[in-house]
């Protein structure tokens, strides 16, 4: 639902007054409304969150340090620290499937659809990813049942594959993307060739996808450099 977390209600005691009410089932606890100071009467407040609703804030508030990853929001270090961690090496592709975006969001039952489809291929999920931490069974891609209906701004299913499995994985992601009720983007990470070439580009373009202008490059300034 796009932009659908608020609706008007009429004051019962004074019907000439109307006010906004927040649909807590749709709210992802990003706290943007609080920080923006958009309420002229300062009526907005942060209710105390308890499990499993705490998941919403951990994934959706960009200023909340995730307790598992110690990184703000839903992300991980992925390639941002690769010169130090050497997590991604030549011949391997780091991949991620991002469900939801600001104003749209995603529920974990959709996240589970993606995870189970990948698990059926024998994919190993990224250990330091907050979605992986919510899995009850990583071999099957099953999320803890109490979390399934929680809605977050965005969640990322993250994993790594040998380069030769790319076509197979894209096939599965194309299929499962038709079964989820939100927007998505696919991420792919690799070391570029010695000549700067991007080894996966042809495979992506061949499937009718495009390479976004939102890409990241690690320029290798971190120290100490990983021993590879």
């Amino acid at each position, binding site marked *: 639902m796009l932009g659908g977390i608020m609706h008007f209600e009429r004051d019962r005691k004074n019907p000439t007054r109307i006010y906004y009410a927040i649909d807590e089932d749709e709210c992802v606890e990003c706290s943007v409304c609080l920080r923006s100071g958009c309420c002229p009467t300062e009526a907005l407040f942060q209710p105390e969150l308890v499990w499993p609703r705490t998941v919403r804030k951990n994934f959706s508030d960009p200023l909340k340090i995730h307790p598992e990853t110690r990184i703000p929001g839903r992300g991980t270090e992925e390639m941002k620290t690769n010169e130090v961690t050497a997590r991604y090496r030549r011949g391997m592709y780091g991949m991620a499937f991002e469900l939801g975006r600001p104003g749209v969001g995603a529920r974990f039952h959709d996240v589970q659809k993606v995870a189970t489809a990948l698990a059926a291929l024998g994919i190993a999920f990224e250990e330091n990813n907050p979605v992986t931490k919510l899995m009850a069974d990583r071999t099957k891609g099953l999320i803890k049942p109490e979390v399934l209906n929680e809605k977050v701004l965005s969640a990322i299913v993250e994993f790594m594959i040998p380069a030769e499995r790319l076509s197979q994985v894209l096939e599965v992601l194309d299929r499962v993307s038709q079964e989820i009720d939100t927007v998505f983007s696919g*991420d792919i990470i690799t070391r570029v060739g010695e000549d700067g070439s991007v080894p996966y580009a042809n495979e992506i373009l061949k499937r009718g996808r495009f390479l976004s*202008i*939102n890409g990241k490059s690690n320029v290798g300034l971190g120290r100490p450099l990983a021993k590879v």
Partner: protein
Amino acid sequence: MTHTLHRRGDRASLSQDYIVFTMSAKGLNEEGSAERMKTFLGILLKHHPVNYGTW
């Protein structure tokens, strides 16, 4: 992608749009990274960023 959500336009119009960020590797070079982060932000300021210091 979160850092680039402001982007609207084509490649040509965004050719001078850069997001630069730094992050410590947890468990590897995290210790003492606060001071290095300050240095990084100091370097950034010399180049007149449109915005800085946010996640």
